[in-house]
């Protein structure tokens, strides 16, 4: 690597950090506004026009706050944990393309790399929980470990299915494969599994049991304050954006839908800009759906979460991989896959709808007379 290449890479990475910070600020503002509207409130309105500077004010407040460390905390573990959560969340973005050229490094194993780094934040969460010397933090850290490990399987199986279907782990190539039919139509079951398990990976609302404010008061983050807490927060939103971008790339056709407009513009910079813009809009739409889900559903209990993970998501993800593997091996046309996907999804939905709405088993107490029991002997 020459010095020029090294400098260019450095420029890319620092630019990425800057852009991601701005994106996180916008996401927090967007989330507060969307939640406000879903609850018939206005959301932030005070700082700046329509409250647009609210997140910046919050950031300044967090940075200037005192950084507290518990006396009994395991010092090294306590300070390393936020870094270990943030760095993987940031490194994921090196391989995520926003158009065929707007990417730091277009890796051939991009999808594999992204999945590998998304898991790493568990270590940081468990370390934060352990290092805080706080029982709620430990419970939160262990919950995070259990949740993230069990929901990792469906995510990886879906990604494996897509890799089998496209015969590639390169994200740009996967987007190109969707130029005729996006995978949301071919693999709706995969989209469902990936999105739900992705929400669980992020610990966003229906699955936010490890930072559940009303149960474990913030989980692993209880003892953190000021800038270190802000780093956790930043990492959470960066990975939310990453999952949204992956959903757009893997299932919504990335930047492929505007291909005709890109060809019509012709100019390389112009067409790249249009591709980037399309991808950007798709990602933000997925993020909006995530916020919408947050405004709708209550939190799972931990046993419900585990039941959903191991009894529904994991078996379904294996079914998904088998379907895709058969379809690819025997070269079935794509519509066979989409029909079978919808069928599996429909049967699953119908089964759980029935189970939810059937009457619970009648509960009865049988009283045994002590004398009768003795006589029977």
């Amino acid at each position, binding site marked *: 690597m020459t010095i020029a290449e090294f400098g260019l890479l450095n420029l890319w990475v620092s630019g990425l950090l800057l852009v991601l910070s701005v994106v996180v600020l916008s996401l927090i503002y967007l989330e507060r506004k*969307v939640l*406000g*509207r*879903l*609850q*018939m*409130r*206005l959301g932030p*309105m*005070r700082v700046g026009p329509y409250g647009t500077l609210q997140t910046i004010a919050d950031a300044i407040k967090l940075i200037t706050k005192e950084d507290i460390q518990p006396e009994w905390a395991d010092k090294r573990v306590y300070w390393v944990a936020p870094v270990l959560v943030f760095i993987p969340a940031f490194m994921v973005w090196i391989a995520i393309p926003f158009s065929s050229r707007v990417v730091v490094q277009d890796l051939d194993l991009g999808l594999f790399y992204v999945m590998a780094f998304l898991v790493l934040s568990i270590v940081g969460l468990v370390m934060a929980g352990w290092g805080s010397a706080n029982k709620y933090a430990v419970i939160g850290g262990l919950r995070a470990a259990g949740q993230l490990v069990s929901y990792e399987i469906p995510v990886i199986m879906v990604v494996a299915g897509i890799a089998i279907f496209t015969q590639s782990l390169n994200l740009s190539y996967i987007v190109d494969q969707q130029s005729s039919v996006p995978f949301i139509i071919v693999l709706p079951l995969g989209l469902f599994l990936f999105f739900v398990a992705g929400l669980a990976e992020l610990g966003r609302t229906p699955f936010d049991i490890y930072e559940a404010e009303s149960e474990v008061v913030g989980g692993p983050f209880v003892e953190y304050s000021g800038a270190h807490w802000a780093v956790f927060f930043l990492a959470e939103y960066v990975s939310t954006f990453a999952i949204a971008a992956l959903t757009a790339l893997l299932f919504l056709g990335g930047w492929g839908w505007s291909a005709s407009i890109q060809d019509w513009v012709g100019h390389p910079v112009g067409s790249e800009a249009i591709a980037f813009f399309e991808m950007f809009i798709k990602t933000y739409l997925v993020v909006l759906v995530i916020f*919408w*889900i947050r*405004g*709708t*559903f209550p939190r799972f209990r931990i046993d419900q979460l585990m039941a959903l993970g191991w009894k529904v998501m994991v078996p379904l993800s294996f079914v998904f991989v088998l379907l895709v593997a058969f379809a690819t091996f025997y070269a079935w046309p794509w519509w066979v896959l989409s029909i079978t996907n919808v069928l599996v999804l429909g049967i*699953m*939905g*119908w089964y*759980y*709808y029935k189970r*939810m709405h059937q009457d619970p088993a009648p509960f009865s107490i049988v009283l045994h007379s002590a004398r009768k029991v003795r006589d029977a002997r």
Partner: protein
Amino acid sequence: MLGNLKGMLMTFLTSLRAPVTAQYPDARMPVEQRRMGFPMLLWDDNIVEPYCTGCMVCVRECPTQCMSATMKDNPKHAEGVSHRRKIIDVFEINIGRCILCGICVDVCNFDAIEMSYETELSTRTRNGRRMMLGELLERGSNWQEQSGWMPTSQRNQEAEE
């Protein structure tokens, strides 16, 4: 699954409705008829005097002891204009202590005190807002105009008709 989709649709439809909150100091929600602010004394327009006779019931029943009152002989009764033998002389409510419980209104036998729409009366000092008779009557008669209040006897009469 189906229930989840129904829930999503429900929240989406909710988000299309107008917000029920307002940016408080800049914009205010409209005043509701049932709004309950600080208690104020009422003014009898027919005889041109307060309804309050200074009977001290509200003062005794007030859980925070925020009121004090003294009565005097009513000069208008001596002239034969008014049926009230005694009339209020000095009345004071310490607004900082009042908790807006409404007990004074419930116990009053003369329709003399009502919960008005006045709420924004806070000060920065502990006993910074003590309202004397004149201000209480002024704000009370304002409230009478705003809410279209009428005495109980008149209300009962109209209900019978």
